[in-house]
């Protein structure tokens, strides 16, 4: 079945129509999923940031969140699984005018793309990485992933997950990111503000968006429907700006610390490049 067939009636203009490829709607995300919320906040942030849209490119990998690039009316790339960051690295360095945003999921960015993630952060390449973390692989039907909490159930950990998950803010900060924040899809205004800051930050900025996956992860772990997840985020999340990311682990039913954890200044890859360029040009030939 074709995925791009237009519905015959669109009752209302979408409030974000200016940046959505409307001909591609409806999207593929399940009801109660948080990716749409994250995308909505991103569009809001982009509008607030004042960045010229023609100079913003969005790059996704593969997975549910990876489909975001296909719905946004920017220069947009839907690359291979895990490879959004190195693709974006080439794009960013080839055209210094661009702002490059990576919008993808936890499995894509952190498992198969984990090595690219830590190296882009280490280089402090000028890009914003938005990671929608729903604790499992949704596109392929709810398998265990690099952020699945210990002992949580998925289709490939039917008796519970025997691995420790990555704590993403800690991983990003330790790898060299200059801006690190985490929010849930409940915190839409704060998330939007954080994404605006991240977009305007020079260097490698990282925002984790904790999102429900009612179809797989939440159902398998009896966490409830979309609305239940919002309630649980309200109960279990605590805003602590400047929190030490080392302690920001997430357990299956434990507390979720959110907030802006890191916001520092240091030379970016391009800053060093400019210095090198000057050095080369200063050399007598």
């Amino acid at each position: 079945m074709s995925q791009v067939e237009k519905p015959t009636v669109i009752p209302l203009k979408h409030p974000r129509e200016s940046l959505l490829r409307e001909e591609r709607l409806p999207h593929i995300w399940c009801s109660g999923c948080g990716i749409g919320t994250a995308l909505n906040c991103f569009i809001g942030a982009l509008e607030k940031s004042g960045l010229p849209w023609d100079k913003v490119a969005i790059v996704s990998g593969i997975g549910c969140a990876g489909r975001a690039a296909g719905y946004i009316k920017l220069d947009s790339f839907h690359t291979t699984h895990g490879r959004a960051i190195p693709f974006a690295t080439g794009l960013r360095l080839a055209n210094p005018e661009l702002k490059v945003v990576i919008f993808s999921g936890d499995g894509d960015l952190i498992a198969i793309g984990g090595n690219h993630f830590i190296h882009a952060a280490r280089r402090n390449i000028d890009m914003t990485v938005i990671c929608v973390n729903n604790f499992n692989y949704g596109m392929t039907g709810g398998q265990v992933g690099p952020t699945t909490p210990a002992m949580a159930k998925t289709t490939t950990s039917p008796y519970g997950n025997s691995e420790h998950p990555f704590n993403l803010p800690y991983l990003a900060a330790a790898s060299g990111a200059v801006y690190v924040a985490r929010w849930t899809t409940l915190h839409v205004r704060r998330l939007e503000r954080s994404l605006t800051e991240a977009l305007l930050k020079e260097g490698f900025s990282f925002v984790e968006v904790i999102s429900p996956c009612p179809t797989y992860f939440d159902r398998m772990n009896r966490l409830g429907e979309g609305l239940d997840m919002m309630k649980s985020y309200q109960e279990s999340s605590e805003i602590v700006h400047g929190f030490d990311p080392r302690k920001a682990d997430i357990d299956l039913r434990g507390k979720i610390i959110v907030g802006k954890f890191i916001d520092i200044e240091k030379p970016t890859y391009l800053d060093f490049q400019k210095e090198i360029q000057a050095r080369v040009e200063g050399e007598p030939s």
Partner: protein
Amino acid sequence: MSGDIACAEGALSAGCRFFAGYPITPATEIAERMAERMPQLGGVYIQMEDEIASMNAILGASWGGLRAMTATSGPGFSLMMENLGLGIMTETPCVLVNVQRGGPSTGLPTLVGQGDMMQARWGTHGVYEIIALSPSSPQEFFDLTVRAFNLAEKYRTPVLVMADEVVGHMTERVTIPEEVPCFPRRKPEFPPGDRSSFPPDEDLVPPMANVGEGYHIHVTGLTHDERGYPVTDEVTQERLVRRLVEKIRGHKKDIIRLEEKGVEGAEVIVCSYGISARVGLWAVELAKREGIKAGMLKLLTVWPFPEERVREVASKVKAFVVPEINYGQIALEVERSAGGRAEVIPLNHMGGGLHEPEDILKAIRKAAR
């Protein structure tokens, strides 16, 4: 200069301004040269965390508007296969150089091989057609790298340059022309606006807008329609993939380059490519001195394979001798193309060195009898 240096210089002459790579013998000298030269020319050199990343970075850079290249050897070539496919599917012009060494696995890092010829053709998954060129000297490494960039832009596809350790490391005279031919990027004639993709021209190749030009393009590795949007069905697959294959197959005459020496009137043809063709030519010369009617058919373009010409020659000669540093890869193509009209004698060498001209000569003698 050495072949590797010639390759880097060829790329720079052709306007390459982005190189991403990962150190690997015997291709490292290309990266080192690029690291030195790119800042002088205002280009970008970046050493990525692996070859997967390198391949992706050049695809991104190409969409960013630069002519982009990576260079590697066997183990890295294997890692690049994944996103070679992305390059083919998204019709991204770029150049991938493989300075082949002995394999499988880590194999012979410092010694010659030609074992990746079939990987070049079939290494990434799915249905596709590829362009691969093979140099047999530093000069050809320069020239074919230039050509690879132009073919990449003309047909909007990744192009492979399949060199080998001997060609990469040997130092020989290289003449660098003041100017080299340059096929410019095929830009859309539409004004900027919300156009996610562009219909192909008559030659089946669509124009390409770079990022940041205001078109709001959409590019995906999924099967997509002419708007660039994913449509994962049989009809769209048929239309897209057939076009991707035909845009290359339909232009074989333009893409294929052969170097023939004494083919007319010959009884035995040595058909080879890269460094093996060079040694093969020596054997042909030795055979001629003995009065054997021998000729040389050197493949500068290996893929698409010049099956029409090989078939034509097959109907006039007794045999083909095919020396190559693998267990018989291109020999299979020669055999397929000859279709039984002439005998095909594969001459295999497992790598680490070149054929002895005497061994090729013996095969020519035997074939001529």
